[in-house]
């Protein structure tokens, strides 16, 4: 737990909504009976900024947000294994720019769906247990990173199907890894967090040759010299419970545990001794009734705002980059009572999607300010 010195107390945001923006429910979909764990807009390809996908059970569905709150179903994929339960998804694309949908779940198999050709592109096996989160490197959208229950984080090349790096070992996570994220500008950096209550920052700078090599690899993927990255460059103990979501905000990290809040903090690495360092907690974004794990927040493209659901089906939209933090809106609907596992903000934040434990998808649209 980070020590908080006098005069360095974090700024806690006020729960009074600023009413800067107002959101209304415009649509509600019942996808099925099974919980929907993830929803994500496609930020990789500007042509498809209004396309989003959800995963629930053994199903992956692609939708399009149309004008007037209309949601159109574009594609739906069903895993042959009925016991598969997808937990996460991410948009990626091949080197040729074909949009890929990368999904993973309880089976530990990462499915690469070629949405351009509506077929499975590849399936990655390698994780020893279920996959909790997949993220795409926005600078190189063929690279995805996956966090797994097997306490490892793996870096993959979806184009060639190669497992490039495995972040685990002596310095790795000691429990399930729940969330992982690429640094927005430093292509070598990732942050991961999990059930060992830590957030770990990894560098793949020394291994970048292997990343480059993976793009030209033509031999069997099992012959690729996959490297183990055993030691993170930074280990942060910000939370005292499971850390189930973390995102980079510039060089700062947003992370949340089951403490009804999102924390923004700065990792301060010491030049002399990597691995150690101190944490400066900058701000806190309170989210009431958010005390169960596996609730993930999401941000718009520019990380201006973050939306997070809670156990009671309410959504809190925080302005991230202001100090003190400003609560943009608190979204609630009388019929939305089920825990919201994940939200998705559209490119400009005008649309917020939420996916719920009861298998519903809610669409909230910003009301034009008068």
């Amino acid at each position, binding site marked *: 737990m980070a020590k908080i010195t006098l005069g360095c107390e974090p700024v806690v945001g006020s729960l009074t909504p600023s009413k800067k923006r107002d959101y209304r429910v415009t649509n509600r979909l019942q996808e099925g009976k099974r919980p929907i764990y993830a929803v994500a807009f496609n930020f990789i390809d500007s042509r498809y900024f209004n396309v989003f996908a959800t995963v629930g059970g053994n199903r992956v569905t692609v939708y399009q947000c149309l004008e007037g709150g209309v949601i159109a179903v574009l594609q739906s994929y069903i895993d042959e294994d009925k016991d598969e339960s997808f937990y996460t998804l991410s948009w990626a694309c091949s080197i040729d720019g074909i949009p890929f949908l990368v999904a993973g779940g309880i089976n530990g198999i990462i499915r690469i769906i070629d949405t351009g050709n509506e077929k499975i592109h590849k399936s990655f096996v390698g994780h020893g247990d279920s996959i909790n989160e997949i993220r795409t490197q926005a600078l190189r959208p063929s690279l995805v990173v996956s966090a797994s229950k097997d306490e490892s984080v793996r870096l993959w090349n979806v184009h060639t199907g190669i497992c490039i790096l495995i972040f685990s070992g002596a310095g790795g996570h000691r429990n399930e890894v729940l969330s992982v994220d690429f640094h927005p500008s430093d292509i070598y950096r990732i942050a991961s967090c999990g059930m060992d209550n830590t957030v770990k920052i990894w560098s793949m700078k020394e291994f970048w040759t292997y990343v480059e090599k993976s793009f030209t690899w033509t031999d069997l993927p099992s012959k*690729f010299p*996959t490297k183990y990255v055993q030691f993170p460059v930074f280990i942060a103990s910000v939370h005292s419970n499971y850390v189930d979501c973390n995102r980079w905000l510039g060089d700062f990290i947003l992370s949340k545990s089951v403490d009804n809040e999102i924390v923004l903090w700065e990792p301060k690495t010491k030049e002399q001794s990597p691995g150690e360092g101190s944490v400066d907690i900058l701000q806190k974004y309170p989210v009431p009734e958010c005390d169960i794990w596996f609730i993930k927040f999401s941000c718009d493209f520019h990380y201006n705002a973050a939306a997070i659901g809670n156990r009671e089906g309410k959504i809190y939209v925080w302005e991230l980059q202001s100090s003190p933090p400003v609560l943009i809106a608190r979204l609630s609907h009388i019929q939305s009572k089920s825990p919201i596992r994940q939200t998705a903000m559209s490119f400009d934040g005008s649309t917020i999607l939420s996916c719920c434990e009861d298998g519903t998808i809610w669409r909230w649209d910003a009301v034009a300010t008068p």
Partner: protein
Amino acid sequence: MSSERRKHGAFGHRMLSLRSLQEPRSEGYLIVSGLSASASSSLVRTGLRPLMGSSHAGVSGFGVFFEGWNLHKAEIAGKALAAADGVDSAKLVNLRVFPKIEGVPVSGSSPGIPLVARETIYSRSADQMCRQDSRVHLSAEEEIAAEESLSIYCKPVELYNILQRRAVGNPSFLQRCLRYKIQAKHKRRIQMTISLPGSTYDGVQAQSPFPLYILLARPISDIALAEYPAVYRFNRACILTSSTRVDGSHQAQANFILPDISKLAMESKSGSLTILIVKCAESKESISGFGLPKDIMDMAPFSTNVGGHCLWGKVPMESLYLSWKMSPNLSLGQRAEIISTVDLHPCFMKSSCLDDDKCISFQNPYNSGTLSKAQQFQVIISAEEVGAKDKSPYNSYTYTDVPTSSLSDIIRLRTGNVIFNYRYYNNKLQRTEVTEDFSCPFCLVKCASFKGLRYHLSSSHDLFNFEFWVTEEYQAVNVSVKTDIWRTEIVADGVDPKQQTFSFCSKPLRRRRSKNLAQNAKHVHPLTLESDLHAVVSNLGKANDAHSSKGERARILSGNDSQAVPGAALCVERVLSSHNVPGVSSATVQSNADPECVQSGPASNLAPPALLQFAKTRKLSIERSDPRSRALLQKRQFFHSHRAQPMGMEQVLSDRDSEDEVDDDVADFEDRRMLDDFVDVTKDEKQLMHLWNSFVRKQRVLADGHIPWACEAFSRLHGHDLAQAPALSWCWRLFMIKLWNHGLLDARAMNNWPAVPKFFALRNLQGLVLSHNQLAGTIPVDLGLLMPNLAKLDFPNKWLIGSL
């Protein structure tokens, strides 16, 4: 084949050959220098027929005439031919890489001569050895089948190409011998033989000229006056004894080796070489009276300082040289004979040994009347190039009707030419190739002579059968592939050779087995061999007849396979016979296709090797279980132990096991990073720690007992780096002392390392002890005990201890 067809073929050929000679294409028609058109047509008349007439090439026995395509451009004749012939060039290119041979005065000298598919003709008169254009008209399927059967040459040739590359650095004994022979031949030395004609001396000479001494000598002073003796220096004297004593027809002769003709020219011009003929007046008995053993009796009068009356005469080398030069024979590698009359004068001979030189002096006697009178008789002096030719019918060909001006070229071109006929398609077809300089077509080794080629082929290329033929007109080798030898390597499509049962076939140790073998006798070598070999076989058979069945005998034959393959024996035997009889009929070889015998191959020359019955039926349990476990392996998916990536089947079945591998790159990287965390350690110390850690990891230094070895190996491995960086070597020294301090390192072992004394140089000694003191808090009580080599440096031990 019908004789009619053969005749037709011969006729067709003749027509074609005439056409090819009369209508030469301007570009592709190569003309031997100095060989005019009339000469070439005269060649045809003399029986040097074009080797093969086809649409591509009309080739004479010399391999001179090419038609239809330009050889100037064809560096590898075979490639071009393959293209022209419509044959898959990849298949044949190995067969057709010809050596570039120097010194052949053919414009655009390309030694290779195209291969042309022809039908094999079984009856071979000497005339038909170089066969006519009897290109068989095969159907399309047959042609494909024929091409396929030709491809059986590919594998052995490939193998020999590999072997050839290996042999470049380390040539075999045979090749070294042959190389020596070629070198000897290049020196073109002349062997001079001096003999007496059997009949002449009867009339001319009253008494027998024997014993007669012949010397090749250099004059020291040539003037044989009464007061000044003529003195000659010589190396060797030959004695000619009575010819009648040995054999009536056989002439005694003296042999000398002379340098080649050009050197001889210089020698003879200076007049420094003379042949001396000496007839001793004393009888032989008197010489042997010296009590010399008979074998050195030859030299008796010349080896010791003796003197005596004798008759002597000389033949100046100059006259010999001039007459040799005139005669064309010598330059053509033939024998040049001169009959020369020698005047023998009486004189007093005295021989002496001065220093190493043996000298002989002749002095005209004052009273010549008392001595025997001067005599005159004839000697035959013949000369030929050493090793210029072997006694073979091919070389004894008489070149009639050939102008002498072009003869030497023709002979030089002709001598090394060997025709190779490659049989395929069940010996029905053959392709022909001609190599020069007795080169082996497979590995391009020049074999100096046909005999050398014969030995080379049968010893180095025993995957083929060879038949050797020498006639006056041709030197030819018929080649066919021994199909049975490498049958085991041929696996049907879709069969994994790894899963094939490996059977080891050895000689039966006990006779009891022979009964078992008798059942398999049908599979075994039905050989009908040449008469020579027949005897061998029947002898072998006889030896075992008493207690062995037919099968046993067959076993012996196949047992020979391992040492001398019967095919090779066949070749050798046939060669021997072919010397005498030019047109021997080939061995008739059949194989009875036995329906029971699974491995019975095509009706090839040799039968398959015997396979023990039990080897086929009874497999070892491990072999039996292997396919099953293999099937299990193939059924399930395997994952890499490190990467957890699904592995391909070939990766699963490969020998590599990654389970306990350590990724050294990552380990080094992490080690470095771990060391970087230390704040109280200098850069050099970190570097040494890193080197040591990675060394220990890579070399798996696990136990205390490994440390002495590890230290020694480490100082050897990084000795250079340590020497370069004093600070680093300083760290290393400290570390070793620490190890010694912990009892992990033996001081004596440390002392004995060759690399160590220089580390423990004198000037660092004080620091060493100091630092040791700092580290351990103790002082080495007796440095001499610790490191005797250091004690030898004459260090005041007291001072060391005392000052600390």
